[in-house]
């Protein structure tokens, strides 16, 4: 009885998705639908060299013959790929020399998102590349990074300015034919970020990209390529938001990371795409392929993700541990509330000797949401003394949600050591009552308990993002307790 009352009260309190605004800005779009012409249009818009167009067309021809994967525990109506736009750009952006030339409406949008692109950003010491729908609109700190020899620019620019680097690495971790969504992305990706950290360089600042879908009926297909040369180090952060719309929008990104001998890449994501409303209407379909290749001896790649948004999340940031003694890590918080569906996890592919991997996954389900951890740990015959530790914890809030853990473990080397631990728990009534009795309100109590549950992962985030992520955890679960 009392429980129902509280739920109603709480849902009235619920702060709605605060990034749900739309920026009214004139857009330039490709004609609706997807064909070779669309691919040519995008490539021409980007003034790409011939080889890039050919690469895209190759991908498109493969994609036409591929089928959408159906093995994930997510359900959604069939997507009509012909009924969407594949390229949308703010009309007066592309050729900009400085921030002053960026459309003030765009800057205002980024301010609303809490991404100060100008002075404040300098103080924060974070370099930001901002991708608005399909194009990258502003990159701060470029010069300072140039001094260190770090390349940090929109991938469209890299294709023109650093073709040799792009050709050498693009598609080497996630091949063009990898999977339906990655192949689609290869054909139509519009922009994204390119990072190259040269030998022995420790990138002097955190690099960051904010992705924003603004236009309606438009898919976002960004492509990120990060290369850390021998002995280099880089920490990269990615944030995502989108307006509230009744329709579902497709986001199919590809991220490739390459770490050469002794290099380290730390990749953090705070994904807050619009999750749809309380009734499950609208929201982003987030079908993303992220993979890192520990190509070099003693290299390390670490993924940290806080997934709170999207109607559907289909995402498995993975590590190929190719180099001997390389290390892969995956720290994940996936929150699904209302009608959200998340199927997320990782793959750790041990190829080299003495390779180590660590997986810490925290899944939180509330409302009518379904949250699945899906993970593969694979030890190949030559990966002597490989080690993996996996810990998968699920937390349920309320009685109508679901948590699922689907671990796949394949070991073909007898010296491998693989540990898997999994727990499922609920926010107990007595935990909640204890907090309330001490004066902590319902919403704050849930946020406190969930943040405690996620602590090991939150600790992996850079400080300023950890604070943001903690708040986000609270906001995402508002209205979830009954």
């Amino acid at each position: 009885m009392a429980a129902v009352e509280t739920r109603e009260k709480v849902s009235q309190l619920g702060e709605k998705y605060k990034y749900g605004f739309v920026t009214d800005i004139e857009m330039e779009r490709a004609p609706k639908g997807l064909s070779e012409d669309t691919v040519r249009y995008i490539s021409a818009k980007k003034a790409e060299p011939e080889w890039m167009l050919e690469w895209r067309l190759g991908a498109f021809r493969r994609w036409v013959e591929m089928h959408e994967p159906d093995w994930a525990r997510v359900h959604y109506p069939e997507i009509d790929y012909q009924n969407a736009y594949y390229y949308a750009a703010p009309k007066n952006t592309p050729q900009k020399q400085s921030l002053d030339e960026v459309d003030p409406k765009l800057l205002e949008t980024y301010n609303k998102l809490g991404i100060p692109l100008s002075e404040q950003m300098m103080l924060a010491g974070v370099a930001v590349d901002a991708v608005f729908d399909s194009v990258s609109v502003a990159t701060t700190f470029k010069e300072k990074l140039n001094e260190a020899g770090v390349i940090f620019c929109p991938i469209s620019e890299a294709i023109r300015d650093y073709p040799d680097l792009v050709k050498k690495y693009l598609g080497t971790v996630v091949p063009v034919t990898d999977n339906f969504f990655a192949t689609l992305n290869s054909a139509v990706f519009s922009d994204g970020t390119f990072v190259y950290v040269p030998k022995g360089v420790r990138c002097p600042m955190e690099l960051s990209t904010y992705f924003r879908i603004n236009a309606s009926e438009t898919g976002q297909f960004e492509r990120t390529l990060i290369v850390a040369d021998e002995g280099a180090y880089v920490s990269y952060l990615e944030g995502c938001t989108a307006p509230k719309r009744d329709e579902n929008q497709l986001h199919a990104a590809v991220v490739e990371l390459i770490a050469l001998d002794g290099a380290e890449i730390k990749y953090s994501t705070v994904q807050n795409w619009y999750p749809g409303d309380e009734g499950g209407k609208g929201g982003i379909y987030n079908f993303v392929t992220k993979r890192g290749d520990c190509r070099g001896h003693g290299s390390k790649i670490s993924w940290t993700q806080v997934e709170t948004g999207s109607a559907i999340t289909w995402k498995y940031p993975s590590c190929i541990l190719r180099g001997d003694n390389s290390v892969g890590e995956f720290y994940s918080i996936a929150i699904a509330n209302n009608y959200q569906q998340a199927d997320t996890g990782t793959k750790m592919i041990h190829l080299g000797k003495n390779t180590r991997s660590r997986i810490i996954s925290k899944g939180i389900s509330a409302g009518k949401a379904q949250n699945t951890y899906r993970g593969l740990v694979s030890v190949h015959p030559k990966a002597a003394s490989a080690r993996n530790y996996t810990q998968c914890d699920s937390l349920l809030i309320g009685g109508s949600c679901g948590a699922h853990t689907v671990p796949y473990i394949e070991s073909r080397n007898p010296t491998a050591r693989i540990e898997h631990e999994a727990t499922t728990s609920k926010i107990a009534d007595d935990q909640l009552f204890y907090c309330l009795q001490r004066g902590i309100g319902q919403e704050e109590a849930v946020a406190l308990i969930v943040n405690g549950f996620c602590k090991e992962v939150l600790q992996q985030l850079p400080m300023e993002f950890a604070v943001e992520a903690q708040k986000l955890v609270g906001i995402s679960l508002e209205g979830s307790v009954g």
Partner: protein
Amino acid sequence: MLEIKNLHAAVDGKEILKGLSLTVNAGEVHAIMGPNGSGKSTLSYVLAGRAGYEITGGSIAYKGEDINALPPEARAAKGVFLAMQYPVEIPGVTTLTFLKTALNAQRRARGEKDLDAMTVLKLVRGKAAELRVSEDMLKRALNVGFSGGEKKRLEILQMSLFEPSLAILDETDSGLDIDALRLVAEGVNALRSPDRAMLVITHYQRLLEYIVPDRIHVLSGGRIIKEGGKELALELEAKGYEQIIKDAA
């Protein structure tokens, strides 16, 4: 401070409290004693406002105000504190973080400003020393891996930190050995004050040797069946609940 009149309360539609009346004035310590199932814990939860404990009749006035409709956190901010029989564990949330969150939530509800981390730390450390709550306990996750004694000491520390007007101690003696009991009782006695009322709920007379009450009420079948001064505890100990209940009937 607290005036309960003809209180009826039900859990899952089953009536547990059946016309309970009780008055506790500021500065007094009252003990509620009774056998298992008499409604002792229900009374403490009803006073704290726990969901699922439904008042079906009668009234509770706290400082002259009817608090029936107030949620637990609002009662806490107004100075109602319940030291729990089984303090819960909250993994990943350090004890200090919890104390700071709770203290500031109460302050905010009263229109006071938040205290910063350093101020809270100093405040907590001062109280922790008296109750032998170690620095290590403050850094560990709330109640996780704490011994029974540590958990109860932390409850008393919170009581001391929040400075409630009405403190309800629900079976604070359960699970404590004699040394731990003495330490907890000393902590409670130190908090006796002319502005504060306490309701000590217990099964055994033992606790009342250390926390000497002004009045004792015997609860049975959801009603107070006998009342008296501190000597009533000894009579109970000698006769047992069964005999006392028979005598009262």
